[in-house]
């Protein structure tokens, strides 16, 4: 990792789902590069945070209020949305509440956050939005019917929303990570019959022989969010150690 000193100097950023995992790593990275970063999440980060906004991405009111909170202090330059949950299960075994909850958080949540950010970014003709999709949004994965649908929907939403936002000068992209060593992955492993074997299997399945670290995803998010990606919009960038290249 190479912190780019001052790349986000003076920038106002909100990281939705910024309390843990990839989101928390993104908050640290962007702060290290000079940004003022608000954290919007259902739960407060460990140790608290002076720029914490409590809210649920399934509530349009909460999302709108989070953006307003930032705007009361500074014009929002960057939205990063890391909010998401897993929902393992085949199509045959997934029940309605599981499906609906997954779509509500992972897909509709991304829509709500994008809409709220665009309302303030588009009139200013500037801003950048980065979502966290998944390699499961690019290729099918067994036993992940709802998750694949939500992330695949998100990847395609990013393309469509990017086209709509382009004439207004706002960029919208997403990263598509592989397995990343976060609380979400650890919870999934803990739920397997043999967690130790499950962890070893996951590493062995990766082309590069290891899963990702949250800081590696944050580095890619920082690039897409920055002016260095000025000609990049509507893309899903795999950050996955080659998983979707094969």
């Amino acid at each position, binding site marked *: 990792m*190479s912190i780019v000193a001052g790349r986000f100097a003076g920038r106002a950023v909100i990281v939705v789902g910024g309390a843990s995992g990839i989101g928390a790593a993104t908050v640290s990275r962007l702060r290290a590069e000079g940004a003022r970063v608000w954290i919007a999440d259902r739960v407060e980060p460990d140790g608290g945070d002076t720029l914490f906004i409590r809210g649920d991405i399934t509530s349009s009111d909460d999302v709108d209020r989070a953006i307003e909170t930032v705007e009361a202090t500074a014009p929002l330059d960057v939205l990063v949305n890391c909010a998401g949950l897993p929902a393992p299960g085949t199509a045959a075994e997934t029940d309605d509440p599981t499906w609906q909850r997954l779509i509500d958080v992972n897909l509709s949540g991304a829509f709500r956050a994008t809409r709220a950010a665009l309302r303030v970014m588009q009139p200013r003709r500037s801003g950048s939005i980065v979502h966290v999709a998944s390699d499961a949004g690019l290729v099918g994965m067994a036993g992940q019917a709802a998750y694949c649908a939500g992330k695949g929907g998100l990847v395609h939403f990013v393309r469509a929303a990017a086209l709509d936002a382009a*004439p207004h*000068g706002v960029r919208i992209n997403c990263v598509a990570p592989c397995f990343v060593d976060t609380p979400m992955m650890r919870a999934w492993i803990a739920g397997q019959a043999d967690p130790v074997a499950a962890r070893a299997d996951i590493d062995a399945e990766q082309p590069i022989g290891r899963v990702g670290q949250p800081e590696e995803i944050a580095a890619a998010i*920082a690039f897409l969010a920055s002016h260095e990606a000025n000609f990049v919009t509507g893309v899903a960038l795999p950050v996955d150690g080659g998983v979707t290249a094969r």
Partner: protein
Amino acid sequence: MTIAQRLAGRIAIVTGAGAGIGRAIAVRLSQEGAFVACCDIDAAAAAETAAMLPVAGIGIACDVANEASVAAAVEAVADRAGGIDLLVNNAGIAGPQEPALTTPLDGWQRTLAVNLTGTFLMSRACLPSLIERRGAIVNVASALALVGWTDECAYGPSKAGVVQLTKGMAMDYAGRIRVNCVCPGAVRTPMLESTLPADADVEATFAEYGKIHPLHQRLAWPEEIADVVLFLGSDDASLITGVALLADAGFTAG
């Protein structure tokens, strides 16, 4: 101003560094502290770029489509700098601006030779050093690798080949080196100018051409592509391999 040094102490080769995107890449990598070997079939242009670098580098005459020329250039870099950490395969030609029916065989072959075979030859020559030093390759493909376009009978397939070569090498050397490519939209360079008819009003044509990009509604600047190459070549892309990253302002999103 603090100048971030993302490639301090690294040794990079940029092919086609004598003009356009390649020159911008060479300068960008140098700004980040890399020793840059500027390779180009046009020796004077390579030397000119080398003279522009903020950190000392070298200019080398090299035809990427010629095996002996590639071997000599890579050896010269290894002798001078000690190894290779980053290879940027940027050298390319537009080739015949024709549909299949009127594309001459020699034009087809030269386009494939420079754009695709050149990428293979340079990569193969640099791989031993790249593997030893856990380096990276960044190829410059094109958005036209992914979508059909008129009068690009040879260029499109040559760039599609580069994308697929990128993925194959990423798999072959996974965990040892990273291999990625950038797929730019239309970039304002001498190459793009060369595709215009001789009597064209360059500014008016480019202004119209730029509208293929939903965002910005203009052609890309070479520097905007160089920033993407820098990212893919830096440690910030440590988890990225086998990727074709579009830098086309939404051109192929729709």
